[in-house]
């Protein structure tokens, strides 16, 4: 059976599809978040070295992973929009930026609150922390640049260039703990396995899945408003039940 993948690249069909998908993403996200919190605080044991402070890991690591992942997805969508001139891809890039910025902020904030008791400093100018700060600035730059250009298609193209160039920062963040001598510890979870307690892993992966689903759900909600705004002069928008009333 041939599936017409391009059907959903039209903003009019995607608007409805996104609306149907949101509850199927949001509720599992909420459930996984509660599960992760429960395991993280009531099942996972106290750490031998870091005592209770280590529990910050359950939000710090997933938020950091997502801040990088969302950037790559955003740059990918922006590039698709630039190359194939597809409007929806550019709208997705615009919709992902605020969520990515918030995850980068959460990563830096929880990192500071973890750094203070463990390293004795809220902030150090080392490779991992500095490159993550640059990631936050890239998101903010992308948002500011796009909102400063009135013509949406021109804003898409300018934003896409910034997003694509900025994506070199993501591998720099990821490998910074190997490339440079840094305060920040290396990865605890590797492909070759982990020394982490099973309950700690369960809490961290629940939170990662929760934040991942949340990020998709909230970006889809945001893109729906962007679609309506940009397609406001079309017949299909005028005929939507939520507009007609």
């Amino acid at each position, binding site marked *: 059976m041939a599936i017409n993948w391009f059907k959903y690249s039209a903003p009019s069909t995607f608007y409805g599809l996104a609306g149907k998908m949101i509850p199927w993403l949001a509720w599992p996200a909420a459930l996984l978040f509660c599960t992760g*919190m429960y395991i993280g*605080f009531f099942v996972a044991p*106290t750490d031998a070295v870091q*005592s*209770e*402070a280590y*529990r*910050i890991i359950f*939000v*710090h690591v997933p*938020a950091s992973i997502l801040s990088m992942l969302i950037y790559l997805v955003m740059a990918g969508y922006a590039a698709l929009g630039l190359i194939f001139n597809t409007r929806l891809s550019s709208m997705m890039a615009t919709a992902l930026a*605020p*969520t990515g910025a*918030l995850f980068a*902020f*959460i990563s830096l*904030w*929880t990192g500071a*609150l*973890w750094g*203070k*008791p463990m390293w004795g400093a809220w902030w150090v100018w080392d490779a991992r922390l500095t490159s993550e700060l640059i990631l936050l600035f890239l998101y903010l730059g992308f948002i500011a640049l796009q909102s400063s250009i009135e013509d949406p298609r021109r804003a898409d193209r300018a934003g896409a260039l910034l997003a694509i160039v900025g994506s070199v920062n993501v591998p720099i963040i990821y490998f910074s703990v190997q490339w440079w001598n840094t305060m920040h510890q290396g990865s605890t979870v590797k492909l070759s396995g982990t020394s982490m307690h099973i309950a700690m892993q369960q809490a961290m992966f629940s939170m990662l899945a929760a934040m991942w689903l*949340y990020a998709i759900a*909230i970006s889809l*909600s*945001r893109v*729906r*408003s962007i679609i*309506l*705004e940009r397609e*406001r002069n079309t017949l299909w*928008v*005028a005929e939507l039940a*939520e*507009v007609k*009333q």
Partner: protein
Amino acid sequence: MNWTEFFAMKGYALYVWGSYGIVLLVLMVEIILVRHKRKITLQQLRLIRDAESLESI
């Protein structure tokens, strides 16, 4: 384990709850903003439609 002990986090309360507090706050604010944006966008669409139907009279 009692609740006072739990919330004290062996002296790390500020750091642990400061982290989880900001996560919940950020996510809630984002949800409110996105919902508000949808409401405003739909209102504007109706206003434009009403203005246009007035012009055509």
